[in-house]
């Protein structure tokens, strides 16, 4: 596939990463609010679990961001190989998610997870060559 759209593709990957990070953080926050699916399902069945998700406003905010991310991905895939766009966008999203999860969700991003973030950064550098 044509790879001469370099800067435009990376700009599109940036848009995918930003919207995907916002979506992930909102949805992870929503799922933390809702609680363990297995417990909810054993208590009130699959319908109860689905209703618990559909009643959460934060979930829909996340869904909107993920929809934006999806259409950005679709747009980028029409220009560039999936072997670059999908891993690069997902890997960069992982790094931005690590920061956002630490500062917004207050997750314990320990040395293992930070080391993973560095590995992903280097991996993305190799991916883009």
């Amino acid at each position, binding site marked *: 596939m044509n790879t001469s759209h370099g800067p435009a593709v990376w700009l599109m990957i940036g848009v995918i990463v930003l919207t995907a990070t916002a979506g*992930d*953080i909102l949805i992870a*926050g929503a799922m933390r*609010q809702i609680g363990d*699916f297995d417990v909810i399902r054993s208590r009130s069945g699959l319908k109860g679990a689905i209703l618990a998700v559909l009643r959460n406003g934060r979930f829909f905010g996340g869904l909107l961001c993920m929809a934006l991310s999806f259409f950005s991905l679709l747009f980028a895939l029409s220009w560039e190989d999936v072997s670059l766009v999908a891993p690069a966008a997902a890997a960069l999203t992982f790094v931005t998610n690590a920061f956002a999860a630490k500062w917004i969700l207050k997750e*314990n991003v320990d040395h*293992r997870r930070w080391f993973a973030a560095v590995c992903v950064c280097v991996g993305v550098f190799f991916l883009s060559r």
Partner: protein
Amino acid sequence: MTFRRYMVLVCVMVSGAFGDTFLSAGMKQVGPISLQHLFGLVVALKNPWVLNGIILLIVFFASYLTALSWADLTFVLPATSFGYVIIALLSQFWLHESISLSRWAGILLITLGVGFVTQGPSYTHHPDVDSPQDSAVPSLGEGIVAEQEKEHSV
């Protein structure tokens, strides 16, 4: 982590990788879409590969939500990173895209770097937000069960 929960993580990897690859195959058939003709993205939804890709991504989303209900975001994302390798294999052997050695190195580095995260705890316990006395105010930690707290403390 139970066997069933590992299976949920496997489902996240496989459905996500196949979903992305199906989308790519579909968008190659549809062709490039310009900024002036963004409606083409809606037309692309009629392509069977794109439709099947979307169905797989719905499966991915459901299993992803399930995983996030008992694990941290920074656990789920690296734990499912093997999906990158599945994408690379599918794009080389099925879509016949060329993957250079440096791309392979990048994919392997990502997988190696993040794979071992699964050895750590899957969930962060928040004493300030998870405790029952805070339940009057809805918080990010509301609804977390004792099993997860126990798992974290191991």
